[in-house]
């Protein structure tokens, strides 16, 4: 219901060429600054005039934020690396194919050429009440318009809602959690490394933010350890339009077999809560069990325990149950569009 005005508000544009310079700008301008990565999320906000920052810090010219390096058998991906670059990187395809699959299912080729992995994991929620400019909880108000008796909430959360029922729309986020990735964050106090699992925060902790980044911090890189390299991966995304769309639910799993059974396993579902949901109870249940229909079915049932549906999103429960079962069963995902 956003009123598209197409003319962005006036702001001062900075295009630093180093992370240090960018951090100085963020430190100087604080909450008045807006960080521009690939611009795909930002342009919505700016053109709708729902965000009116005084300063925009464009990261495009910072070379150190781009590229993929091999480090200790794993990878370090610069936050400004485009999704297409991630998809095409030979080591990603060879060792961490789940990230390739997830990145390849993001939106359209044009968007993947422009969109960055840092932006994809840090993007804001797609709840249209919030993005429509209504003063909901997430926008600093005192109500969730998506969680009312008459709300249109087909895409919203079935888990971990705390006043706000928006979900995380990222495709690469669950893949990164499944790969046990780490997020490298730099700010005025130096560098800190956060497990991908802890990078996103739910509304119970901070209802106005989707991740742990402070206004003066930047996500500079994503590290993928060798831990799950070459594991058996599964990624599947269900969306309304196969051409390009945000996920209704997606699932990512990484399994290391142990003999004929499931060994180490990481199983993550996204778009069902405000953060990617790692299913630790299911992981513990399936570890050591044979990878067959019975295990998959039981895992699917376990995965949806505790789900709380809204008026229009009850379908997400069987959808998630079946996706988890498919991920555990390891059957071929639905064909991709590219």
């Amino acid at each position: 219901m956003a009123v598209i005005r197409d003319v962005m508000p006036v702001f001062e544009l900075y295009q630093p060429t180093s992370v240090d310079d960018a951090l100085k700008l963020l430190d100087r301008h604080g909450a008045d600054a807006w960080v521009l990565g690939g611009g795909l999320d930002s342009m919505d906000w700016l053109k709708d005039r729902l965000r009116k920052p005084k300063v925009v810090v464009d990261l495009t010219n910072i070379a150190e934020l781009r590229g993929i390096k091999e480090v200790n058998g794993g990878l370090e991906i610069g936050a400004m690396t485009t999704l297409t670059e991630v998809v095409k990187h030979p080591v990603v395809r060879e060792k961490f194919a789940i990230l390739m699959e997830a990145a390849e299912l993001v939106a359209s080729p044009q968007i993947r050429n422009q969109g960055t992995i840092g932006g994809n994991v840090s993007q804001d929620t797609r709840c249209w009440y919030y993005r429509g400019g209504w003063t909901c909880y997430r926008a600093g108000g005192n109500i969730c318009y998506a969680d009312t008796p008459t709300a249109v909430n087909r895409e919203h959360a079935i888990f971990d809602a705390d006043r706000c029922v928006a979900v995380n729309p990222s495709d690469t986020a669950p893949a990164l959690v499944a790969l046990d990735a780490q997020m490298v964050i730099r700010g005025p106090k130096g560098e800190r490394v956060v497990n991908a699992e802890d990078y996103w925060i739910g509304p119970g902790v901070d209802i106005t933010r989707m991740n742990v980044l402070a206004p003066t911090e930047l996500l500079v890189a994503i590290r993928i350890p060798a831990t799950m390299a070459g594991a058996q991966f599964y990624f599947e995304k269900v969306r309304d339009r196969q051409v390009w769309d945000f996920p209704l639910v997606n699932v990512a799993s990484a399994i290391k077999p142990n003999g004929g059974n499931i060994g180490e396993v990481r199983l993550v579902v996204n778009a069902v809560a405000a953060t990617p949901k790692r299913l630790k109870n299911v992981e513990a249940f399936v570890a050591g069990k044979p990878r067959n229909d019975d295990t998959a079915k039981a895992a699917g049932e376990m995965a949806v325990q505790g789900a709380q549906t809204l008026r229009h999103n009850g379908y997400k429960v069987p959808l998630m149950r079946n996706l988890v079962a498919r991920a555990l069963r390891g059957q071929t995902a639905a064909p991709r569009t590219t």
Partner: protein
Amino acid sequence: MDLLRWGRSPWGEWVLTHVSWSLFWASLFAGVLFFVAHASYMLFSAHRKRSPAETDALEAANKNLPAQIERHNLTARLFHWVMAASMFTLLFTAFLPVAGIKFAWVQWHWMAGLVLVAAILFHIVHATFFLDFWSIWVGPKDIPELRAELLREFGHDVPGPKPGKYPLGNRLYHLAIVVTGLAVSATGVLMIPRIRTGLVARNPYYLADSTWGITYVTHGLAGVGLVGLVIAHVYFAVRPEKWWITKSMLVGWITRRQYLEHHEPSRWPVARTGSSPAKPAGQA
């Protein structure tokens, strides 16, 4: 500095949403400032209590008073500490996230809120039917005591009314807590259907947006007010010359000497027969 925050309703109207959290810092600052100012003043003041000789004489004349006099019975003490625990939980869960310490606070907050509401309801019944209801309230009759207390604070040797069971400061504080506590509790109860508690069906639309705004602002104002009030309360509770009152909230009684030193027996009559601790007249 905007003291109130506004938002747009779906109908395009500007409605109140919250108080500005600047008020929290203001209340915190005011509480700490009061604490520093009062503590500094007390170092130099000639704060007067009954002189030892006067108290000795009173004690000699009142040997038939029990050695320990009950000030707060077990029920009243339990209420006080349950209320204190819930109040601290409410304030910490409400304001630590504002101060930058992020955690999932809502569930703790509403549960502590319900405990507080239950405690308040119990206290209203208990105080109305089983305690000396009027002993805690202030009114025009207390003006001479107020005048005398103020003069004593400024070093004058003023004879005159000593308090009954509760010192005037105690009663004024109770009044402030009644106003803020009832405001924060009533608005908090109204908010329960806005969140997922499992206790009542969610219905965020049962009040209009503007009414919700007033509800949230009232809740916020009372909440930030309680920050300063609780700081003041804790400060007085740990002050050496007030410790005897705090101790009585733990053990339930005060000594005969403390009773005679700080109270007006005519305004807080205590039964002079029976075993210790004695129950004051009119008390359960």
